[in-house]
């Protein structure tokens, strides 16, 4: 058993740069999404197809990113 059809691509969600990693192990597809900077994974999903896994992970990512607040970068 091994990861197959491994792919990685950059995307943007609500102005945040994200990185999607998708692969298949046996008959399950997995997608993880991390923010490009600093590279932390914050959403993941699995599904029967690549599209299912990525769509669900992107929905979760969008939900979580909406909770990130931006503050003025000065005192």
């Amino acid at each position, binding site marked *: 058993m*091994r990861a197959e059809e491994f792919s990685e691509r950059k995307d943007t969600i609500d102005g945040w740069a994200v990185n999607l990693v998708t692969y298949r192990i046996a008959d399950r597809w997995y997608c993880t999404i991390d923010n490009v900077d600093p590279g932390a994974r*914050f959403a993941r999903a699995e599904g029967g197809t690549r599209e299912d896994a990525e769509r669900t992970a992107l929905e979760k990512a969008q939900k979580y990113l909406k*909770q990130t*607040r931006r503050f003025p*970068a000065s005192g």
Partner: protein
Amino acid sequence: MTAQGQGSDVLVSTDWVAQHLSDPSVRIAEVDVDTAAYDQGHVPGAAGWNWTTQLCDTLVRDVVPKNKLEELLGASGIDNAATIILYGDNNNWFAAWAFWQLKLYGHQDVRIMDGGRKKWLAEGKELSTEAPKAAKKTYSAKAPDNSLRAFLPEVQESVKGGKASLVDVRSPAEFTGEILAPPGLPETCQRGGHIPGAKSMPWAKLANDDGTFKSPAEIKALYDGVGVTGDKPIIAYCRIGERSSHSWFALKYLLGYNNVKNYDGSWTEWGNLVGAPVEKP
């Protein structure tokens, strides 16, 4: 094993691991941020360690207690003579966290698989969902070596006296206080910014796109560029101490700087302290 000078005894390649899967002196453990990743499939024979329950004190905020670490290692078939190979997701964030704790408790031979879980998957290397069948061993940890760890009073003294180089390894937006946590993750502090005097050197700058560490020469040039040269003690911090474990590893083992500490209290301690000085940007 990598053959690039410094670090050749603590950093191994995915190919090296693939060639040592049946080596009885080698024990492998996966430590992920995503504690469910291991169950999808892992390096054959690897144990799966949960950083939220097995690599910390679950009552008090602290590193794993000595007796709990001894139990974990023994149950994973690891004795004091074993070569431990650690790997994980997020470019080995929590593998580095585990590495730091194993060094804290004096394990002699522990190494990180360069590139971690993502590289192993990307290369299509063999995976298993079987639980490892290692016979239980007895492990005896040493007393914690706190020369590898910075506590709050030492960091406060460093701010006042400038006796140590403070390195903030979080992202630039966390350093400036624009955000309080990596995007998409829960905010765990009351204030944004950084510890006064800290230099910003995001951990991600030390890594290549495939998650492997850059060469020691490249990493040294990055740190030299912000004035962190190893001529005085270095204290690395991030948000909860795992990203700074990654940078601590690079500073201590790839660059060979002697006096490097990980401040695991990090920003979740400093950024929540009443009255603590904060610098922005």
